């Protein structure tokens, strides 16, 4: 049913888990919290749930679900806070200044919705197949394809807002 989860196998994947978590939360501390929750879940449910598939993809799936759960909780919490007149934190919504400053690919990336960030990380950075990504994110493979081109177009739009260096080069 499963190979046993050795500590060494896990240690090898943890840096990638941290990167994936960081693209989701965009904050290092909460990213590591997410990784910890993911590992605890993986080790407590243990080898029983670990099918012969790719360890990395399996852990990504757990981590993404934990992230979504956390977001749902945060949303509920934000709703409660709003009742008491506490505004929701605006730091995650891109301000005009941020968009102007979105020079680098990373800044543009960080303005994408979380599901698009997850998708780009899994496919472009981690090199998962469309099918593996669909399994990890729990969506259909057709959804993966349409979302992927939408996400890349959004990034392109943002980074193209910067001064057009190629034009200058052409003129020269």
């Amino acid at each position: 049913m499963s190979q046993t989860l050795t500590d060494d196998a896990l240690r090898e994947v943890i840096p990638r888990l941290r990167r994936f978590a960081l693209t989701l939360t965009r904050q290092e501390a909460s990213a590591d919290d997410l990784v910890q929750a993911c590992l605890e879940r993986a080790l407590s449910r243990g080898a029983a749930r670990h099918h012969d598939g790719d360890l990395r993809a399996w852990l990504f799936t757990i981590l993404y679900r934990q992230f979504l759960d956390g977001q749902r909780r945060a949303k509920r919490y934000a709703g409660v806070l709003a009742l008491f007149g506490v505004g929701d934190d605006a730091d995650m919504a891109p301000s005009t200044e941020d968009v102007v400053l979105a020079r680098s690919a990373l800044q543009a990336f960080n303005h994408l919705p979380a599901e698009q960030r997850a998708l780009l990380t899994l496919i472009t950075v981690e090199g998962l197949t469309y099918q593996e990504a669909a399994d990890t994110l729990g969506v259909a493979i057709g959804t993966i394809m349409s979302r992927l081109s939408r996400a890349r177009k959004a990034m392109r739009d943002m980074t193209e807002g910067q001064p057009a260096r190629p034009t200058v080069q052409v003129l020269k």
Partner: protein
Amino acid sequence: MTIHKTTQHSLMPADAELHAYVDGELDTARRAQIDALLPTHPDLARQIDAIRAAAQQLRASLPEPSPADTPARLDPFRIRRTLRDRAQRRMAVAASLVMALGIGGVGGWQTRELAMRQNYLPMADAVQAYRMFAASEGPQVVDVSATDPRALQSWLDRHFVQPAPLPDFTQYGFRPAGGRLMPTEQGTAAMVLYRNDQGQTIVYYVRPPGNLLRFGNGNRQDGNLLAQYWRQGRYSYAVVSPTDTPVTRTLQQAIEPSRRDAT
């Protein structure tokens, strides 16, 4: 991969197909078609390059963290230990709860039984029956007024399953005078009155043992009465007799339950 099929016949790839091309998700036939298009369609080649470049840029922006930077709290060994400790703590809490419930429950039950035993007087109902009925004269206190032991025995047999034979106290001067049924907590009980020529009375008492408290054989002094009781077969039996008269002493000695074999 529906998208592959729908665009199978159109030569120009759709946007999503370009991404699939870059990501290596196209089947070989379609891939070859696009490769064939590239030399004549520089715009297509540029789009593909742009997608590749953006992907490369993103990969460069998101380097894999060094394993050395992994915080200690994320080490699998430590997480396993944390989980183990947590499980043990939960087990300990659960165990202590079970212990507390167990001690409380068992202890409480035993205390209750002890309290009941202390307050419970074996065959108190037999003594009570004696006080109510044996002391009063007259035939109205009995259901069956019979002096023939056989009549009384068949009366007993009707109400009990294989009761012990009615004792014969004639050698002590006591003869059966009648019987009476009465309800008790443990079920129907029967008493048989014996009288001697002086009008003194003893009571023979039969009832189901009940299932709450079991007691074996013994005797108990209650005022001027002595209740001697024993278990035999399905029922509890008692003989209640007065102690303030010498005529019953030999009888009491004869039936003393502590001298019987326990049944």
